[in-house]
């Protein structure tokens, strides 16, 4: 096995660690890298995770990306909303914009009733964030995504919380994983904090590509490298076609 690990593979490790300790809940990764990460977690630390085919079937096994596997259950969209409300889910969504408080936008750019660019709409983000752990995956970390504020609050950030209303009590923006590093909202007043930067990434590079100050950026550690077994699972079992390399701009790190 090569001693060289790609940036994409480090991102997969960071995405797998999103699910550390998650237990028997539904994992809902919405892009290739977190999908590989969720399946890696299921094959290593979190064997009880529920994963689906992206339609309505729950996999009894852990197939390769795009592959099929035996089925253990049925999860149509109607039931997904029941799971959302129950809290037994961790979603990894994408984001067109994220601010320092964790507000996320995937709806549109510009004004509410007359946007300059239309995307999907708020989708499940308002309900996901109010109900269960939510993380974000951003394949291209830059200051257009990480800006001062988001145009349309889809996923709810910590500064929206009304502390007098217990209905906000489940808000848990767990991680933000990007091609540059791993972040959470453990900074002052629940603002974005660097947990680790990927090997070869400098604090300056993150600062230059982020439109706000990131807490603990200079003291952040380095994202860990995959073990031999994890690399084997990623390369041979989960993603033999190398789809991860299409999502993350290639950077190699020697081990």
């Amino acid at each position: 096995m090569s001693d060289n690990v790609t940036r994409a593979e480090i991102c997969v490790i960071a995405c797998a660690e999103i699910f550390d300790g998650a237990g028997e809940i539904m994992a809902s990764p919405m892009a290739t890298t977190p999908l590989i990460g969720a399946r890696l977690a299921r094959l290593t630390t979190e064997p009880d995770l529920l994963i689906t085919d992206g339609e309505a079937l729950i996999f009894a096994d852990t197939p390769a990306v795009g592959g099929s596997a035996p089925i253990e259950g049925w999860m149509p969209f109607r039931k997904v909303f029941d799971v959302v409300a129950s809290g037994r889910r961790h979603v990894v969504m994408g984001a067109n914009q994220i601010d320092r408080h964790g507000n996320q936008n995937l709806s549109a750019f510009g004004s509410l009733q007359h946007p300059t660019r239309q995307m999907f709409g708020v989708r499940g983000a308002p309900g996901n964030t109010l109900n269960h752990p939510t993380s974000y995956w951003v394949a291209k970390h830059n200051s257009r995504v990480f800006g001062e504020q988001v145009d349309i609050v889809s996923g709810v950030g910590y500064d929206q919380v009304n502390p007098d209303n217990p209905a906000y009590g489940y808000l848990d923006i767990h991680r933000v994983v990007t091609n540059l590093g791993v972040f959470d909202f453990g900074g002052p007043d629940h603002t974005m904090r660097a947990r680790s930067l990927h090997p070869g990434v400098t604090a300056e590079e993150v600062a230059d590509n982020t439109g706000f100050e990131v807490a603990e950026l200079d003291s952040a550690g380095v994202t860990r490298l995959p073990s031999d077994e994890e690399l084997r699972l990623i390369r041979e079992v989960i993603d033999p076609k190398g789809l991860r390399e299409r999502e993350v701009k290639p950077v190699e790190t020697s081990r």
Partner: protein
Amino acid sequence: MTAPTTTRTQTDKSSTLDEAIAEISSGMTIGIGGWGSRRKPMALVRALARSEVTDLTVVTYGGPDLGLLCAAGKVAKAYYGFVSLDSPPFYDPWFAHARTTGAIEVREMDEGMVKCGLEAAASRLPFLPIRAGLGSAVQDFWGSELKTVDSPYPDADGRTQTLIAMPALELDVALVHLDIADVHGNAAYTGVDPYFDDLYCGAARRRFLEVDSVVSTAELVETVPLQRMLLNRMNVDRVIHAPNGAHFTFAGDYGRDEAFQRFYATSAADPDTWRAFSERFLAVDEETYQVRVREWASEQEAQKA
């Protein structure tokens, strides 16, 4: 001695597309079943797009249904959680155009809120409480049309939960596509997901069902597991036989026509290509549409060869 028999039979609700669309008038609120670009009642949508009706309010888990109605200038207001083609290029071009030109007013919401609002309407309740929406732009999209409600039951610590009071999404008409039905409106889906079509019908005053296949009641119950029978006849007013009617979205027996969906999206990019697309596929009745789709597919095959 023979038992007395009844000569009366249950209502035959067989209908044409045009008879169904004739019931829809300008200003109505229309709910459209399916999800994204999945099992959409596209034959009914195409017929509605050809009609004289305007100023519709549309409630949908949106896909090209909302897109085609926007392209035809039928939509004044839309209630949705998302609009997606589900596969590349993902964003519906005509919905995007209607939004970026300010042509429609929208009440965007969390996906779960759509279900919640349909459940309220189907249960004849004015609202149902839900957490989703709190703190997000959903409250700005709706303005004073969306209210909150304080729980009458305090939490164990004495505090009070304030929740979104999701208003009932009452529909004048529901349009849904299922795979197989009888003429009375008993109907089943054969794909993997029922979506919310029964809720749309429950929330609506008039319920129009288009189906790929119409069979006898006896054949219906023999063909599908009974758990797949999503609709029973008391929730259906018209049954429209429309083979391949969900095209280019998918239904139980056929997949999404990805090539045609991409063609729809790319045709929208330019006025000339859209005019050509409209004249060939949208200005014609459903039967002609289906013929032209088959011709188009043959042309694509011939070009590849």
